[in-house]
Structure formats: structure tokens, C-alpha cells
């Protein structure tokens, strides 16, 4: 299928059509038709993406110019797509995982009134996500970037009658907007320094002989983009929207808030790796922010009781890991983890969705327990996902996470220790989650117990597929000591799409025993932490948390802090402006002018005393004065 790349616009076209049909016909279409249209459109995109993938693997790559978007005499930004290894890999993840989640949604949302609308939003999301990864310049990326934000907003607030949900949606959009502003600043800086936003024009200029832009400026560009990424990919300081975003339907959490949208920041930095290689300071920041986020949110995940909240914090934490990798210059490693994470985290969320479905909407793990007996498929697939995310050898997460930890090791001891601690915490809280939910005895009400059932086939099937992927997905990127080729790295390196910074992999070339040692250490801590997580929660007792545990449970009071430092002051300022500056100050001044005129008029009016004699006197006086003036001005 040569020449598929020139038809790459088909990929976003299908979801767009799906969106239009479902969006315009959401009132009349039957639910099943809406679901079918939604799922099939993504399937069609998946097929095209596969074709693209094979063509790229055969060495193809290219740019598709669709039409001029913003073209004036100072700007030249075409609406163009770029297909290369990175974008085709992301397309596969998005359409593949996306399709499975669409299928799952057909079952999950079957009772929902607004199901057709839901699929319209979901298709719009897939469309935007494709623009994001296919765009040939930062502006198209930004279109997708904001587009996924819109869909995230719409889907978080899908149950719009609940005020908490809609305010969570608003929060996610506004927080993302903060990052987006930085992203815009970054784009403008690129335009200012390099005069283009197109990747193919921009990256070759960096470090080229004619590159007069100072390193400082590059650092700032990189930092601005990274701030944008902290918004979309939920890193410190803009991460608090993601846990709240769990208000949306669970498949949405799986697709948007775990597998795809939140990895947009990683995609963007991997895409801009040339820039980040030229900005060492910015990369250092990326690594440390990633580590801080990974650890902070992992500790929070330790003490959450809401099953989706645990997964949400775990997502933030895993994203932190990916940023550690990016910061170390291990770009392909980050993309690798994006891929494996997409599999197992989507699986975890869908499994959690299955549990919530069975529990009739209950999300508190304190009311669960022993569900494994009633929902065997969910339990097994969930266990596989837990093993994968915990980094147990043999599962996909092991390979990608091991690579990240190695990258951190190559970067420095402290980062390595932090990353290792992060993976210990991950394994611990995941097995806490698993143990509390699936093992032991049921702690919920009798009714709930009666209601428990395994989910229908269209929900379990995606679970099984994802479980298989969660196991085998890691074998595309085996460490150098185990396999001669790192398949994923080789693929991503095609045509130089994404290359790890020189010096990272070479570090281990000569030190095979060191690499074996690292693998041994991370496997050991993962296994020990997993067992500890299981053992500690086998017979759970729920007592009020104290001390550090309370801080974990209360999320370190970050939300409260933001509320006190940012939200309230702005609201206070607003109402102060409204009541003070606006009404009393400026409008007062304007009205003051009017009042002054009126006041003056009141005084002037008194001159008209009504006494005719007085008027006559003034008149005569006036004549006398005029005569005098006339006389003195023009003496005879």
C-alpha cells in the first residue's frame, strides 16, 4: 500500500464523520446505532493507521499539506500532517486502545440517556487527539491540544446535572489553560527566534551553523513548552485537575485521562527532542519535576479509598516517570512507557469500570472486597495489569519502567533513588488496591452483594485484549543484555523521528554486569513491595488516618493551598474591583463630572434672581463694561 501517507487525512476524517453524525443526530439516533457509528469510525481509523504504520516501517515518512491555515505575509502556517515513526506509533495507540474503549463503552453506557452524545464527544476527542499527533507544526498540535481539552471538559461534565462534576470539568479546562498560555508563549518565542512553527523547518535550525539564537532563549522555549505539558499531562504544579476529572464516566477516564490525552505532553517533548537536547537546563527541570510529581502523587495514592482516585494518582505518578525519562534524554523510553502504560492503565480503568458497574456506582474500596469470586475475568485481567504496572518481570511495565530507572541511574544517583522509591510505592499501592477490591470478604451492603455480576461480553472482551497487550507489549523493547535489538527504539529512530540523546545507552555498552544488577534490584523491590502491599491489606481495618497518613489521604492539602493562594484572591480581587474600583472609582469619576456640572448649574442658576431691577442693573453694568473694553481696546 504505497502512498498511504498522502492519504493520512483519512485517519482523522472517520472520527470526524462519526462526530458529525452522532453530534447532529443525537436526539434521533437509537443508542445502538450511535455506539456502532462511534466504534466503527475509530476502527476504520485503526485500519488506516495500521497501513500507515507498515508503510513507515518500510521506511516511508512524509508531510501532507492540506490547505493554508494562517498564511499572511508574516506567518506561514499550513494545515499539514506529518507522518513518521512517532506519529504513526501514537496513532496506533490512540486508535487501537481507543477502539477497545469505544466497544467497552457500548456496554458500559448502555443505560445512559445521552449515549449518542457521549459517542459524539468521544469521536471528537479521537479526532482532536489525531490532530495533536499528526500535526506538522506546533499550531496544529496546539489545535489538537486544546481540542482534547474541550472534549475532556465536555466528558468530565457529561452528567451535567451534578454540580460537582461540571465544576471538575471547568477546573480541568481552566488549569489546562494556564499551561496552554505558556505553550502559546513558547510558540511565539519559536516564531520570534526562528520564524516558523513547522517541525521540518524548525528542528534543523537548532544547533545548525547559522543558529544565532542564544541557549538562554532555547531554554525558555523549552521551559514554556514544558509548562504547557504540566497542564495537559498533569504534573506539578498543575496536576490537581486530573483526580477531579474522575467525575467523568469511567471509559472516559481510561481513554482520555490515562491512555491518550494526558500523554500529549510526553508526545510533545519527544517530538521536540532536538530542542530539549539543546536546552540542558530545561531538561533538568523536566526530570526533577517529573520525579517530584511521581513521588508526591504516589504517596497520595497510598491512602485513597476511591478506586478511581487511586488510579488517577497512579496515572499522574506514571506520567511523572515518563517525564523523568524525558529529562534524562531517554525519549524513546518515555514513548515506550506511554505505550505500555496505555495498555495496562486503560485495562486498570476499564477493570475498575467493570467493578463500579457491578457495584451499582459504588467507588469506595471500603465497601468492596472479595469481588474476584463473582467477576473472574475482571479479576484476572486486573491482576495482570497490576503486575504490569508494578514492574514484575515478564510483564510489559517491567521493561519500560526498568528502562526509565536505568536512565535515571545513568543521570545520577539521587534521581535513581527517587525513581526506585517511586516504583516501590507504585507496586505497594497497586496491590493494596487489588487486595482491597478483589480478595477477602465482601464489605458492602447486602443489596450490592446480590447485584454483583460479571460484565457483559462487550465489556470483558476489551479487558482480555488489553490484558494480552499488557503482557506482551513490553517485548518490543527488551534491554540490551537480553536482546540484540530494541525494536521500539529502532522503529522510532527511523528517519530520525525520535532518537535518544547520545550517551545514554552507550553508558551500559561496556557495563553489562551493571545493567544486570539494575534489573535485579528493580525486580526485587517490585516483587517485595507487591507482596508487602498484599500482605498489609489482606485483613483491612479502616481507622482514621493520623500524621503523615492523613497528609496522604488529604492529598497534601494541595487543593486547599491553591484555593487559598490563587482562587480566593482572584475572586476577592474581582469583587473588590467590581464594588470598589469600578462602581465607586471609575464610574464614580464619570458620574462625578456629571454631578459637577449639575452642582455648578445649581449655583449659576441663583444668578437669575428674578428681580427685574437686578437684571436691569446687570445689563447696564454689562453695557458699561463693554463700552469700556471697546474704548480701551481701540482708543479713539
Amino acid at each position, binding site marked *: 500500500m504505497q502512498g498511504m501517507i498522502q492519504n493520512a487525512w483519512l485517519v482523522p476524517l472517520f472520527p470526524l464523520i462519526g462526530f458529525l453524525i452522532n453530534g447532529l443526530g443525537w436526539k434521533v439516533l437509537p443508542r445502538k446505532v450511535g455506539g456502532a457509528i462511534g466504534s466503527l469510525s475509530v476502527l476504520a481509523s485503526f485500519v488506516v493507521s495500521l497501513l500507515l504504520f507498515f508503510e513507515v516501517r518500510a521506511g516511508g515518512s512524509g508531510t501532507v499539506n492540506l490547505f493554508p491555515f494562517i498564511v499572511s505575509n508574516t506567518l506561514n502556517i499550513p494545515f499539514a500532517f506529518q507522518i513518521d515513526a512517532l506519529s504513526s506509533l501514537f496513532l496506533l495507540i490512540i486508535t487501537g486502545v481507543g477502539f477497545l474503549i469505544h466497544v467497552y463503552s457500548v456496554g458500559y453506557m448502555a443505560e445512559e440517556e445521552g449515549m449518542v452524545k457521549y459517542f459524539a464527544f468521544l469521536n471528537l476527542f479521537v479526532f482532536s487527539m489525531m490532530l495533536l499527533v499528526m500535526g506538522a507544526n506546533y499550531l496544529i498540535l496546539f489545535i489538537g491540544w486544546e481540542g482534547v481539552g474541550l472534549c475532556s471538559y465536555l466528558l468530565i461534565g457529561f452528567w451535567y446535572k451534578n454540580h460537582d462534576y461540571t465544576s471538575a470539568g471547568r477546573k480541568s479546562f481552566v488549569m489546562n489553560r494556564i499551561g496552554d498560555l505558556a505553550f502559546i508563549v513558547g510558540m511565539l518565542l519559536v516564531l520570534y527566534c526562528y520564524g516558523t512553527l513547522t517541525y521540518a523547518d524548525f528542528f534543523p535550525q537548532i544547533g545548525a551553523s547559522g543558529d544565532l539564537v542564544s541557549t538562554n532563549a532555547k531554554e525558555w522555549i523549552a521551559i514554556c513548552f514544558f509548562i504547557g505539558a504540566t497542564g495537559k499531562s498533569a504534573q506539578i504544579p498543575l496536576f490537581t485537575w486530573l483526580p477531579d476529572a474522575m467525575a467523568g464516566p469511567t471509559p472516559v477516564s481510561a481513554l482520555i485521562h490515562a491512555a491518550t490525552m494526558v500523554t500529549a505532553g510526553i508526545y510533545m517533548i519527544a517530538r521536540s527532542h532536538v530542542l530539549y537536547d539543546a536546552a540542558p537546563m530545561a531538561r533538568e527541570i523536566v526530570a526533577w519535576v517529573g520525579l517530584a510529581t511521581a513521588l508526591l502523587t504516589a504517596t497520595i495514592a497510598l491512602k485513597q479509598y476511591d478506586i478511581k482516585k487511586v488510579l488517577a494518582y497512579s496515572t499522574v505518578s506514571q506520567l511523572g516517570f515518563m517525564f523523568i525519562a524525558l529529562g534524562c534524554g531517554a525519549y524513546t523510553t518515555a514513548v515506550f512507557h506511554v505505550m505500555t502504560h496505555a495498555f495496562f492503565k486503560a485495562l486498570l480503568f476499564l477493570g475498575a469500570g467493570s467493578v463500579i458497574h457491578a457495584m451499582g456506582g459504588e467507588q469506595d474500596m471500603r465497601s468492596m472486597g472479595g469481588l474476584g469470586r463473582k467477576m473472574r475475568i475482571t479479576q484476572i485481567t486486573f491482576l495482570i495489569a497490576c503486575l504490569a504496572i508494578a514492574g514484575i518481570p515478564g510483564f510489559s511495565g517491567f521493561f519500560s519502567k526498568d528502562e526509565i530507572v536505568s536512565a535515571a541511574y545513568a543521570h545520577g544517583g539521587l534521581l535513581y533513588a527517587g525513581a526506585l522509591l517511586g516504583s516501590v510505592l507504585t507496586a505497594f499501592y497497586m496491590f493494596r488496591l487489588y487486595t482491597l477490591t478483589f480478595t477477602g470478604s465482601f464489605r458492602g451492603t447486602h443489596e450490592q452483594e446480590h447485584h454483583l455480576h460479571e460484565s457483559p461480553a462487550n465489556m470483558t472482551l476489551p479487558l482480555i485484549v488489553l490484558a494480552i497487550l499488557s503482557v506482551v507489549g513490553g517485548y518490543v523493547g527488551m534491554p540490551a543484555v537480553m536482546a540484540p535489538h530494541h525494536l521500539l527504539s529502532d522503529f522510532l529512530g527511523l528517519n530520525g523521528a525520535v532518537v535518544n540523546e547520545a550517551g545514554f545507552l552507550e553508558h551500559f555498552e561496556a557495563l553489562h554486569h551493571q545493567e544486570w544488577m539494575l534489573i535485579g534490584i528493580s525486580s526485587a523491590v517490585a516483587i517485595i513491595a507487591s507482596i508487602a502491599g498484599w500482605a498489609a491489606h489482606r485483613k483491612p481495618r479502616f481507622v482514621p488516618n493520623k500524621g503523615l497518613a492523613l497528609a496522604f489521604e488529604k492529598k497534601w492539602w494541595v487543593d486547599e493551598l491553591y484555593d487559598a493562594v490563587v482562587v480566593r484572591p482572584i475572586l476577592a480581587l474581582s469583587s473588590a474591583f467590581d464594588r470598589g474600583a469600578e462602581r465607586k472609582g471609575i464610574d464614580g469619576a464619570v458620574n462625578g463630572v456629571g454631578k459637577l456640572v449639575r452642582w455648578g448649574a445649581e449655583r449659576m442658576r441663583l444668578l*437669575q*434672581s*428674578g*428681580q*427685574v*431691577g437686578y437684571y*436691569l*442693573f446687570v445689563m*447696564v453694568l454689562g453695557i458699561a463694561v463693554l463700552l469700556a473694553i471697546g474704548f480701551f481696546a481701540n482708543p479713539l
Partner: protein
Amino acid sequence: MPTQYYLFLALAMFCIGVMGTLMRRNAIIIFMCIELMLNAVNLLLVAFSKMYGHADAQIMVFFIMVVAAAEVSVGLAVIVLMYRKVHSVDINILNRLKH
């Protein structure tokens, strides 16, 4: 007779008119004083006309007399109305504008 006599007479008449207008409260008297001033001007015009041997100024006198006549008719009508309303021709009673 030298012209300045007329000038002094006209000046005197004019001043009497001004003073009368300013000091008196009776509308009719004020009215008469205004007439006095007009006639002072008329006198001046005639005197200068004689002095220069030029008739133009006398045309102005006719104008003034016509206008004064018209003014008198309106003014007296106003005063009559005023008297009917307030039974007085005292100008200080007409001070309603003040409020």
C-alpha cells in the same frame, strides 16, 4: 447754538433715564425712563445730523421711533396683563424665576 449743548442735554436725559430705570420699582416709570433714554439718543442723532449736514442719522431716528412705538405697545400690554394678574406694577413682585 453749539452742538455740545445738545450733547450735554442728551447726556443728562440719558443719565436720568438710566438712573430712573435702575432705581424705580414702578414698571410704568421704568418704561418711561427707557423711552427717555431712546429719546436722548434720538436727540443726539438729530444734533449730529445738523452738525454734519447729513440726513442719514435722521433716518435712524425714524427707525428708533418706529421701534419704540412698537415696543411701547407690547410693553404696555405686558404691564396691563401684569396688573391684571397681581394688581400691582411693582417689578419686585415678579420674581418667580427665582424658584
